[in-house]
Each structure stands twice: as C-alpha cells, then as structure tokens.
C-alpha cells in the first residue's frame, strides 16, 4: 500500500471538510493548503497563463514561484500553496491575470 505523508507523520487530523473548485466538491483536511487539497484530489491545474492560456498549477509549493495562483473566495492571484483550506472555500480557475472584469 502506498505510504501517504499523513501516515509517515503519524498525523491524526480532525474530520475532513469540503471546498469547491469551479463548483465541484473537493475534500480537504484541516491544515492542508488549497494546493495540497487539490493535488490530493488529483487536480494539477487551476490557472491559465496570460499569454497563450496554457495550464498551470503548483510548482514550488513554498510560495516562491507564483505558478499556483487561483481565485479564492472571489480574490484573484492568491497563492494556493500558501492559503490554508477552509470549510466551504470556493476556488475558481484563474484565467490569465484574473481581473478581466476591470478592463476598459
């Protein structure tokens, strides 16, 4: 059986809760970052690049590369690898800069 980080650390987290990605439910554990929860659910991409619209997700996982940007609860450009998941968080795929609505 695959050894999970949770087994390796001997962690006994509190009960799981739900967040959503583009409306679809994703299970998260207390203490997980949004990126970790998405990864655990097999989701690797939640952003498209500004030029060319290519898919992006977490790369460094430690807040340095800014690849993992997502719209979290309506706020764009949040680093999913740093934001702790919270029950009911609504994560949305970020298209480009995530501010299309402001354009004039």
């Amino acid at each position, binding site marked *: 059986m695959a050894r999970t980080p949770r087994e390796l650390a001997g962690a006994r987290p509190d009960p799981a809760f739900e967040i959503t990605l583009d409306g679809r439910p994703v299970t998260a554990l207390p203490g997980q970052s949004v990126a970790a929860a998405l990864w655990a659910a097999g989701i690797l991409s939640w952003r498209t690049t500004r030029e060319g619209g290519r898919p992006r997700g977490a790369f460094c996982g430690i807040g340095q590369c800014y690849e993992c940007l997502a719209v979290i609860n309506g706020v764009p*450009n949040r680093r999913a690898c740093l934001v702790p998941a919270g029950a009911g968080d609504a994560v949305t795929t970020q298209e480009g800069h995530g*501010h299309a609505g402001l*354009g004039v």
Partner: protein
Amino acid sequence: MRSASDVIVVGAGVVGAACAYYAARAGLSVTVLDRGPVAGGTTGSGEGNLLVSDKEPGPELELALFSCKLWQELAELLPRGVEYEPKGGLVVARDEPGMAALRTFAAGQEKAGVTVREVAADRLPDLEPHLAPGLAGGFHYPQDAQVMPALAAAHLLRASGAEVRLGPGEEVAGLLTGPGGAVRGVRTASGALYAPHVVNAAGAWGGEFARLAGVLLPVLPRRGFVLVTEPLPRVVRHKVYGADYIADVASGSAALQTSLVIEGTRAGPVLIGASRERVGFDRTLSVEAVRRLATGATELFPVLAGVRTMRTYAGFRPYLPDHLPAIGADARVPGLLHACGHEGAGIGLAPATGRIIADVLTGTQPPLDIGPFDPARFEPGGSR
C-alpha cells in the same frame, strides 16, 4: 592599446544608446562603455513617459517636442519590442482654481507648438472610465507617449551597430588627454581606449565623470520610487496625472514630494510613480513615499484600491540645479562632450540629445538652439 574608434560613449543608458545610434547613423564608428549592464542605471529604474504635457514653454519643451517626433520615427524603425505607445496624456484638476491654472499653462504651451484640448468634467469618463468622480476637469495631450525604457535602450544600441563593452572592467577611471589638453581617449580598469571624442552619458554619475575630466558639472541624484501593481487588463488608458505634478517637477526642493503619474504597461502592471527627493544615492525603502503614492493613486483611480502592488523600486534622476540637461561640447576640454542631467525626462529627451551630439560631432548645425544646455554654464564666473 585597444581598438580605436571615432567616439567613445561612456554610459549604456537610454541617453548613451541614443548618442551611439545617431552618431553611427552619421557615419562615425562608436564604442559604448558601461561598468554595468545595458540600462543598469536610471534607465532601468524609472518609467517610460515621453511627455510634452508637463513642460512649460522654453528650451526643455522645444527639446521635448523635437524628441517626440524622433521617437515617432524610431517607433517605425525599431522592433515592436520597445513597446512604443502613442497613448496621450491626461492632466486632471480637483477644483476650479486648479483648472484655471492648467488652462493658463496649456495656453502657453499651445503657442509653443503643443497640441492640447480641454476636457470638461462630464467628458472625463469617456477618456478614463475608472477615474474618480468629482474632478473639476482636465486637459488631454495627444502627443504624450510611452516606451519601455530598458528595451528601448537595448534596441537603440543594437540598431546602432556600435561596439558595446560592458562590465566592471569597462569602468572609466580617467580621461586621456594630449597636448593642449585635448581628449585622446579614456582609461578603464582593463586599459586604455583611444578616440578623439568622448561623450559623458553617465547619467546621475555624470558629475563624477566630469570631475575625472577635471571640469565642474554639478549633477546630483534625485531619488524616485515607483509602485508596481499586479498585472491587469487595461484599466488606465492614458498617462494620467494630477495638476500638482507640474509644480513638483519644476521645484528644486530636496524634501520629499509625491506627484502622481499613473499608466498601464503592455506587460500588464500599472505603474504608479513617482516621488522626488534629494537624499544622495540612498536606496533605503521609504515607506512614507510609497504610502503617499498608494494613497494618491487610489484617490485618482478608486479601482486600484482593490488590486495589489507586487513591488516597488527606486531610481536616481540625474538632476542639474536649473532642471536643464547638459548637451554639447565642453569648451574647457577639446573633444569632451556631455549628454547627461536629464532629470525626470531622460527617456523622452534621449533621441533629441543623441541627434544633437551627432550633429556636434560631425560639425552640423543642430536643429535647435543648444545654448541653454551648455555644459560649462555652472562654472563659477560663467562660460558664456
């Protein structure tokens, strides 16, 4: 002895690049030296506004109008990568006295050849939909434009075909002179380099370079901070600034001033500039300067209150006490020319400066009176 050329340009900022470009176009062989990278000085740490709107009638405005035309030409000749955008400027006033002052200012500029149009308060949203409500009106200057300074300098240098030598070994440590004090070249960390003409395009360090040449040119650094937002779609269409900007630019005060200029960039971030302060070459972050920039920007464009800034940076404007650059031959040292001291307008004024330097080098009459830019004008007793 290293290879000889007709002219050595000291400084690979936008001004040195423009001097190299126009001198090479005039048929001269050019070597450009910089102790750092291309655009590693002020050119890489300012903004790229090409403004006529902020200049009162006089020698600097004449130079700016000429330079604006040259930038238009260069935009056709250089790769699109220089990000030239003829977007126009919009100066806004908060109240009626502010509008009245702008109206008088604009009338003078119009006589000097500037195109300007008054914009009533209720028409402001047509030009800038995100502008704060309640402003008294503004003036639209279609000649104002924008480039990306570092890329502009790099492309000018490449297009010049000049020999470009960069790095610590190319720091110029002295001027080589011959009989009668005439220029023979420069001494760098890695040896001597010979040319009958040397152009001081050392920006804010132009005063130090002049000292090496044994002449007085009191260039001082005037620090400016810029705030950079996260990438955005186009939320600001023009270069937008407040009426108080013009007064601050013209002031000689050493104290901190923040006069807002806000513009979008092709890359996405909105630039919020800039502060002015004479504190030497001190790069310490000034929270007060940055706070004032942020406050001012969100007052003009409330939409910016909801976006983040990614970073801030500071640069040193090459300031001369009379706010005019030093451009032309130095009568005190035959063969020495200066092209520095453009303060907050060096990007805009670079092409005209380069053209004048090329004209002086080739003995051609420059297209405008360069007397006011005489590099020897600060000599005690005066040179003229």
